[in-house]
C-alpha cells in the first residue's frame, strides 16, 4: 500500500514539495496501520480460532483489546488530521473513507456475510495510489480512478491463487471465503475472468492519454502474462493436481511481481516523460 501510494504520488502530473510528499505517504502508512489495528480489534475472537492468526497480539493476550481499539482510533484520526492540515483535505477525505471502508464496510459488515468479501476488501487496498495522486493534483480525475480499478480487479485473482494452495481454517472461524463456499472450480473460473477483465483496465491509462507508451506496452505485456498463467490454473481441479500446485504458486508469485512492475512502469513512464525521453 505504501509502494502504490508512493507510485500514485510520483506518477501524478504536477509537483509536490518533498516534505509534503513524504508526509502524504506517511499518513497513508499510518492510516493503513490504524485500519489494520481496528480490523484485529474487531476480529480478535475469529483470529484466535485460526492457526495463521492465533499468535497475533490480541488473541495471544499480549495486548488488551480496549488498548488496541484506542490505538487504532488514534492512528486513524491522526493520519486524517495531519493529511488534511499538511497535504490537503480531499486527500484526507479519501483516506478517511478508505479507513471507514476497510474497518466498517469490509471488516464488520460484509466480510462475515458474503463469499465476495475478497472483491470488496480489494477496494480498501486500492485507495492508496488514488490518495497519492490526489495529494499532488488536489482533484479526482479519470486517472486515479483507473489506478483504483487496477488494484480492485487485481486483488481477487491474487488472493484466490494463494487460497488454492494454502490450507486455511476460515471455515472453522465461520468466514465465507470463496473456495470454502463455492468450491475449487468456481474459484478457478473467477480467477480467469478477473485476469481477463483486468487486461483492458490496466492498459486504459495509456488509451485515455494519461501515460505514454512505456507504461502502455508494459501493462499490455504484463497483463497478457497474468492472463496466460491463469489459463492452466482455470483448466484444472485441485483433486486432480499431482504437481504440488505448481501453476497456482506460479500465478500467485507472478501476481505480486505484476503489481510491482506495473506501478514501477507507471512511475518510469512519468519520470522519463518529464526528462523529455519518450514524451
Amino acid at each position, binding site marked *: 500500500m505504501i509502494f502504490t501510494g508512493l507510485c500514485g504520488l510520483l506518477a501524478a502530473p504536477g509537483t509536490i514539495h518533498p*516534505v*509534503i510528499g513524504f508526509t502524504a505517504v506517511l499518513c497513508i502508512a499510518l492510516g493503513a496501520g490504524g485500519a489494520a489495528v481496528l480490523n484485529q480489534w474487531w476480529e480478535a475472537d475469529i483470529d484466535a480460532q485460526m492457526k495463521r492468526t492465533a499468535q497475533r497480539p490480541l488473541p495471544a493476550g499480549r495486548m488488551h483489546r480496549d488498548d488496541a481499539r484506542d490505538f487504532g482510533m488514534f492512528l486513524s484520526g491522526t493520519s486524517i488530521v495531519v493529511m488534511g492540515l*499538511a497535504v490537503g483535505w480531499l486527500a484526507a477525505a479519501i483516506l478517511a473513507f478508505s479507513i471507514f471502508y476497510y474497518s466498517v464496510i469490509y471488516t464488520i459488515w460484509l466480510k462475515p456475510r458474503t463469499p465476495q468479501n475478497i472483491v470488496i476488501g480489494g477496494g480498501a487496498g486500492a485507495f492508496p495510489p488514488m490518495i497519492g495522486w490526489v495529494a499532488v493534483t488536489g482533484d479526482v480525475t479519470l486517472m486515479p480512478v483507473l489506478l483504483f480499478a487496477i488494484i480492485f480487479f487485481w486483488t481477487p485473482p491474487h488472493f484466490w491463487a494463494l487460497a488454492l494452495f494454502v490450507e486455511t481454517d476460515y471455515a472453522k472461524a465461520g468466514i465465507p471465503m470463496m473456495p470454502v463456499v463455492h468450491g475449487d472450480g468456481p474459484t478457478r473460473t473467477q480467477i480467469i475472468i478477473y485476469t481477463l477483465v483486468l487486461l483492458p483496465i490496466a492498459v486504459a491509462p495509456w488509451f485515455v492519454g494519461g501515460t505514454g507508451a512505456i507504461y502502455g506496452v508494459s501493462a499490455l505485456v504484463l497483463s497478457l502474462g497474468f492472463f496466460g498463467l491463469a489459463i492452466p490454473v482455470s483448466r484444472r481441479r485441485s483433486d486432480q493436481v499431482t504437481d504440488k500446485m505448481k501453476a497456482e504458486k506460479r500465478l500467485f508469485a507472478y501476481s505480486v511481481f505484476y503489481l510491482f512492475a506495473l506501478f514501477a512502469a507507471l512511475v518510469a513512464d512519468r519520470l522519463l516523460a518529464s526528462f523529455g525521453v519518450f514524451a
Partner: protein
Amino acid sequence: MTPEEEAEFIRRRKSRNIVLGLVLGFFAVLFYAITFVKMGA
C-alpha cells in the same frame, strides 16, 4: 514479582520509552519542517 522479573520489566519499559521518545522527536521535526514549507508556499 521476583528481582529477575522486575529487572526484565524495567528493561522493557526503558526500551519502550526510548522508542516513544524517538517517535515524538521525529514528529516534532516533521511538523517543524511542514510549518516552514507551508509558510514558504
